[in-house]
């Protein structure tokens, strides 16, 4: 038996009320594992932002989470419109979110910068018309 825990979540695209459920599940799991609260906070904010992006920009996707005693790896994948200019998207405050989405309190353009800030390793791949994959890694040991 290998010593890691693998989890899979579907991220529904059309439901704002459910957005954030996967990250809040992962938060609960990390709490049960006794992970340091400051690290849990970083993981859950980074994952939450990536999850929300999949909901508001790409009509949903999936999350694969793997936890071992050293790190948490989160891969969030969608088949949405993709990001034409990743460098631009990574800038603080840059957002293409609609007015309606902003009114719900999303779309401040801080999601991707925060994911980068809170993760120890961050990778993003995107093909216009095909979709986007975000990989987040956070070390559990300092």
């Amino acid at each position, binding site marked *: 038996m290998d010593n890691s*825990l693998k989890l899979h979540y579907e991220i529904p695209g059309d439901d704002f009320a459910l957005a954030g459920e996967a990250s809040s599940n992962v*938060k609960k799991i990390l*709490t049960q594992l006794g992970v340091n609260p400051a690290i849990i906070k970083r993981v859950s904010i980074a994952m939450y932002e990536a999850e929300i992006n999949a909901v508001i920009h790409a009509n949903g996707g999936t999350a694969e989470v793997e936890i071992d005693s050293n790190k948490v790896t989160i891969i969030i994948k969608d088949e949405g419109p993709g990001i034409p200019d990743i460098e631009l998207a990574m800038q603080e405050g840059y957002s293409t979110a609609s007015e309606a989405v902003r009114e719900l309190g999303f779309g401040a353009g801080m999601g991707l910068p925060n994911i980068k800030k809170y993760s120890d390793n961050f990778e993003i791949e995107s093909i216009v018309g095909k979709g986007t994959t975000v990989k987040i890694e956070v070390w559990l040991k300092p």
Partner: protein
Amino acid sequence: MESYFHSVTLDEKKCKGCTNCIKRCPTEAIRVRKSKARIINERCIDCGECIRVCPYHAKKAITDSLDMIKSFKYKIALPAPALYGQFDTKYARNKILNGLKSLGFDDVFEVARGAEIVTYATRKLIEKGDYKKPLISSACPAVVRLIQVRFPSLIDNLVKIESPMEVSAILAKRKTMKLHHVSDDEIGVFFITPCAAKVTSIKAPYEKDKSAVDGAISIRDVYLRLLNNMDKSNESFELEISGAEGIKWASPGGEALGLGIDNYIAVDGIHNVIKIFEEIEKDRLKDVEFVEALACTGGCLGGPLTVENAYLAKSRLKKHIKDAAKVNDVIKMDSLTITAQKEMKNEINMDDLLLSDNGISFQWKENIKHRPIMKLDEDILKAIQKLDALEKINNNLPGLDCGACGAPSCRALAEDIVRGMADETDCIFKLRERVRQLALQMSELESKMPPVLDKEQANGDGE
């Protein structure tokens, strides 16, 4: 595990073993076993949800009896401001306070007064700007305990100032020692409490070794006698020492209102509080300065040990607030400073409240600690294995969260199983599966006959 005191307990005789309470508990602290609810002590935060929801009144709070005051020479009552909302508005605040005194106390010190001082200290803290945003009120001990067990990353956001009750107890004792020449241990200070959470914060404080309060008597327990005494007695000592600001604390938003800021959130009801805390943990409330969070719906007026309906109590409290504003004219904090200084004979410089150089400080001496009650194992590798097992068991359960197993959800049962506290067949659906399998095996076995009795075989052989 070392024994963990908390106030909420079960009355075994009244408990029917229904599942109302297990579903409402915010920390999944209750299980039904052998037809009785059991509280997992270290998980309970004394929010009182189970007391409110139990249709058989089988959940109760451990509080002190009024008799306990007799063991002290000088007895002081510390009424929570929520007490004022319990009676018809024909009883003025001073009447209520005198009624309380007549139950056997030598003096009464309004906790509303302590609340005003906490308001003042919190204002100073906000002015100084040296804190983590948003600042979270520490007035409700159930909320502080919720943070300890479920939101440890918010510990740093707490207002680390003593609660109005502690401040009042400290001041009441100082005043009495000075005026009546009695020693510290001859004075008994008793909080008249709307809830179990406050009882626990007195008997097992989280921010210091010992509370300044000596006991807690529930509002419910004094209610009738107090009502009686108000009608009978004509005593009228001047016992009102609080202005309107302090009385407002009994209702949601009351504390926040006194801070003179606009960007605050006042949330009441433990499940609503959890939602707001989740938002803070996601960094979504950045422009909020202050969060007032109260475990009870309707704030302390909705406390589990109050008598009156919280909404009615709120409308009654309004009158007391109005009267206080009229009589004392201490709505502004500046005039409050003056009154407070006069009252304490200039003993306390309000500006120094946050410092300790004049010997009195209302800042917490110690910070509270994270209590990781949800942790599955000390060793992370073992915890990962248990979680793996937990997820697998959970995927096999029906996912109905019916509660018939005595756990609040299928996932909670899965957790109990990996912790060795429950068995898969506690699930009635799993049990039925097992019974069906056994039945199949039995009928299979039943069709098998020992050869000596097998007639067909014997007949066949004979011909």
